[in-house]
């Protein structure tokens, strides 16, 4: 357990010091502040402003940042993983689980650190057409989507020895999967369809059960993606 916690702590510290994380936080924060001021002075609707922020700022920048942070989780340490880490008293499953927890944990903490104050100030200064619970549900849905993207990135990190193809495949898959799911009629699995529904979700115009269904689908997808990552990593020659 201590080995697991050591890797978790080490990886978390590395993530918090990385330039990708710093830029990601900055890129999310500045437009969020601007939109809070805009909502205050221009009397913008909370639901529309938050949905706009999600579509134009949060999803594109987070998609890229999460693709890099998750796809570098395992292969980013390929030079030291055998020599410095897995030759010590740690199991592969402990290592990969610590990595999964730290990467997804870091992504969700960063997301929450931006979204919670943003929502608070939006509800306070914008034209309030939403409830706290509907906003909460909306952000949980977005969080579950980001978690599944991170899980896919971690799987790619296990499968690919170098970072670039892993990141490109994550971005390509996320971009194309929405269109594909829409084409197949699987709207619940389509990220773009879900994001388009956000204004209604924030206003509380959709059923909570429908929101929970979306969250469950993306969390199940996360689990489905992480299981092979753990399994394949356990079988790999280092």
């Amino acid at each position, binding site marked *: 357990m201590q080995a697991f916690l050591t890797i978790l702590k*080490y990886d978390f510290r590395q993530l918090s010091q990385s330039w990708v994380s710093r830029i990601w936080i900055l890129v999310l924060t500045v437009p969020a502040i601007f939109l809070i001021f805009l909502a205050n002075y221009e009397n913008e609707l909370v639901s529309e402003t938050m949905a706009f922020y999600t579509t134009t700022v949060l999803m594109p920048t987070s998609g890229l940042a999460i693709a890099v942070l998750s796809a570098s989780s395992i292969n980013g340490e390929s030079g*030291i993983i055998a020599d410095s880490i897995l*030759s010590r*008293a740690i199991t592969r499953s402990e290592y990969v689980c610590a990595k999964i927890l730290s990467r997804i944990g870091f992504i969700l903490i960063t997301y929450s650190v931006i979204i919670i104050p943003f929502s608070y100030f939006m509800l306070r200064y914008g034209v309030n057409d939403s409830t706290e619970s509907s906003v909460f549900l909306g952000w949980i849905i977005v969080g579950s989507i980001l978690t599944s993207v991170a899980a896919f990135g971690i799987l790619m990190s296990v499968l690919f020895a170098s970072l670039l193809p892993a990141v490109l495949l994550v971005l390509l898959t996320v971009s194309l999967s929405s269109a594909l799911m829409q084409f197949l009629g699987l709207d619940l699995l389509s990220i773009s369809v879900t994001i388009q529904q956000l204004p209604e979700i924030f206003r509380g115009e959709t059923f909570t059960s429908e929101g929970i269904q979306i969250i469950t689908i993306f969390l199940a997808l996360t689990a489905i993606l992480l299981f092979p990552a753990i399994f394949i990593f*356990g079988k790999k020659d280092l």
Partner: protein
Amino acid sequence: MSVIQTSDLTKIYDNRYIALNALNLNVEKGSIFGLVGPNGAGKSTTFRLLLGLQKPTAGSISLFNEPMTPERADIRRRLGYLPTNPNFPKHMTPITYLEFVGGVLGLDARRAKIQLVRLLDSVDLSAIASQPIKGFSTGMNTRLGIAAALMGDPELIILDEPTSGLDPAGRKQTIELIRELAGRNRTVIIATHILADVERACSDVGILSHGRMIYSGPMAEMRRLARQGNIHLEIEGNIGSFEQQIHTLDTPGTVTYEKIGSEFKITLLGTETLSEYMHRILGLIDKTGVDLHFIRSGEDEIEEAFLRRLEDDRTRGALRAASWLNNQGLENNDIDVQIKVDSNNASLSDNT
């Protein structure tokens, strides 16, 4: 008691390259085992398999009488490993890295601190303990790797090229450290191609060639085999008479002679024992009345013995291959197998 035991350990990469071929290795507790062999012989692969970093294609590994698998962190807790040219997280310092290793090993923070201070001192890195690793030389990395390997006070220490990149003082210090560890009932296995280090530090030695163990035994036996190899002497006086009579000392074909001026280089080919032959040589010197300037048996003995073993293995390999091809009936004009074996070279050529 065996600390390391492998049985027919085999590793084949991508169904193409045989890195290890039915390796049977046995390392006793408290010994310092030197694994020597040329580059690509399979030394590092052996270590990676022992550590559970790779999975064997066939065969089995047991450490401390328990089967080793990638998930056996409990066994890895009992061993320390130094890889060749170790890679460390470059942004860390020796202190933070050893703290990290201590954490992975499950040491409590206070004990880890005490241990890392002691180890940094013993590998002479105290002065640069708070500098980032990214600026370190190969020698500094090796020393840090040794400290990391010893962090959990392991029972078994696996060192891959522990003296690579070290200056003579660092090498001496490392060899002394290895000896000291064995004195504390620790088991050490070292892979190296620096035979002088093996001779100075190891109690047992194994020679790997093309993934096969071609010799394994006590260092003393290796030394004996090596010394059996050659005698170098210089005489003055009636050299002609000595040269005439030296042929009568042995069975023809068991000894070769080389005369360079007043010096004689005598190579024993295996059936003669050094002490008996030396006795006869001294008798001949006495009988012919020549003055003996010096006599010695094998100057760079271990190296010569090592090379001889590799040469024998190559010769045998060529013969085995030829025999196999002939048994397969490939001699019927499909492949013309030619074997050339001489004292310096053994080669197999096929003219398809």
